[in-house]
């Protein structure tokens, strides 16, 4: 298990001293090499969970183990952050340097990695996100999707085992979103990196092995995306929007047409063609 959350609760304390639980008794386990999507609406606690994986937050109750390391132990802090990288929502607010390669070097520099190796890691990270040409560019000249790819490269340069994407596509245009999603898939398949995708767009879960649905701080459903998405009653309760394919199948079933459950457009087309 690379991520193991047992009975995790996380409370925010308001000014009047009142506790609000953003996460309430959450169990999530993720294996090395998995692609897991955590879905939830605003205020479901999904971003709180993301920050727990990176030890930016520490659980109020319960424990969370990253590659066997307890996030509550201060001594593990750097090792945990090295193991679990994080890409945030706003591409502008996570780039530190004025030149792309220097920004990618920021993480490895913090870890005290020798210069020659940092150079190698920059080459590697830029090639994975297909941004080799932009090595010497200023980040503010790039598009949102490109900036987000640089942010991913910056995390990759620390050689993490896990990358958490905390709504990293929310501020991008459709093209940028697609590019970033494809990179997530490649990272998972080719580099063997565990991906945790936090989002409220259900259609982004297409590449994932497993889906968790969070609502009001609790896991209300988990499993294979196809099984989870076609549990219409649960989805309706959370207020999430079904992807087009699932919605079409749901509407067809309502009118009495039986069709195979799938999230793949091609497979759906085939299914429709085979209808009598």
């Amino acid at each position, binding site marked *: 298990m690379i991520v193991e959350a047992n009975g995790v609760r996380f409370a925010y304390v308001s000014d009047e001293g009142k506790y609000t639980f953003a996460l309430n008794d959450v169990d999530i386990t993720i294996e090395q090499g998995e692609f897991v999507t955590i879905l939830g609406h605003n205020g479901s606690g999904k971003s709180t969970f993301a920050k727990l994986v*990176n030890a*930016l937050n520490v659980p109020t109750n319960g424990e969370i183990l990253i590659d066997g390391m307890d996030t509550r132990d201060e001594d593990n802090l*750097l090792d945990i*952050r*090295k193991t679990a*990288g*994080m890409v*945030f929502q*706003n591409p*502008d*607010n*996570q*780039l*530190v*340097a*004025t*030149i792309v*390669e*220097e920004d990618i*070097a*920021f*993480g*490895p*520099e*913090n*870890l*005290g*990695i*020798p*210069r020659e190796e*940092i*150079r190698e890691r920059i080459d590697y990270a830029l090639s994975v996100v297909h941004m080799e040409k932009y090595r010497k560019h*200023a*980040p*503010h000249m790039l598009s949102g999707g490109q900036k987000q790819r640089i942010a991913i490269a*910056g*995390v990759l340069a*620390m050689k993490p085992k896990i990358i958490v994407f905390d709504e990293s596509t929310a501020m991008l245009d459709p093209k940028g979103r697609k590019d970033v999603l494809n990179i997530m898939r490649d990272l998972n398949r080719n580099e063997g990196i565990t991906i945790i995708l936090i989002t409220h767009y259900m259609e982004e879960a297409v590449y994932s092995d497993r889906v968790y649905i969070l609502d009001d701080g609790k896991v209300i459903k988990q499993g294979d995306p196809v099984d989870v998405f076609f549990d219409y009653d649960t989805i309706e309760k959370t207020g999430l929007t079904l992807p087009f394919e699932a919605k079409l199948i749901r509407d067809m079933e309502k009118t009495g047409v039986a069709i195979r459950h799938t999230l793949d457009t091609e497979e759906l087309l085939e299914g429709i063609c085979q209808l009598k």
Partner: protein
Amino acid sequence: MIKNMTIGQYFPADSFVHKLDPRTKLIITFILIIFVFLIHSLPGYISMVAFLALTIAFSKISFRLVLKSIRSIWFVIFITFILNIFFLKGEEILFEWQFIRIYREGLIKACEMAGRLVILVIISSMLTYTTSAKEITDAIEILFGPLKKLRFPVHEMALMMSIALRFIPTLLEETDRIMKAQTARGASFDTGGLISRIKGMLPILIPLFISAFKRAEDLALAMEARCYHGGDNRTRLVEYHYKFRDLIAFALTALEIVIILIAK
């Protein structure tokens, strides 16, 4: 308006001056600025101008850009000139009309002050034209490194400087966006008297400040997530080494200083 400013801008090129170690450039700039105030004779000024002309020639920076940097502070130079010419008293009157008297000493002093200002502006813009922000902050961090022993936060200061520079274009873009949004709601920024114009800036400044704080918070989180934990045990991607050309630059500067001291 802000985008047209040339002071503090970097113009990349492949030249002798660009390739100098940023520490060399920073030290030489500092020395020259001090010695400008020690020049009191015409040969001294001529040698300084020659030195700067040589620097400009070996930097591939166009002369027009250098003039542009002076133009941006011409008003300050003009005021200094006027103040000196009218208010300095001497012995030999050159010009007299009603209560205005211009003395020879005043005229010389005025020319000298204006000349000094021009030279200072050229020196400092030559530094920023040929040295990137990152190089300057790196040089400051290395040069002031020994102060770390006195618990002076050198690394933090350098990082703050570079982050500030990194966010200038981002915040400029944001200002532009906010201005457009407020204009769309009927706000106007360039009509009315001074007071109403200043009041008109508030709807821009407040959202700008709020967003800047939000950005700072996000950035701090992102830096922490990337294992930032202060300057200890940190490596640096770019390493600086003094080369032979730095020696040449220092030797020329030393020569210039000797000329200034002799011509005094």
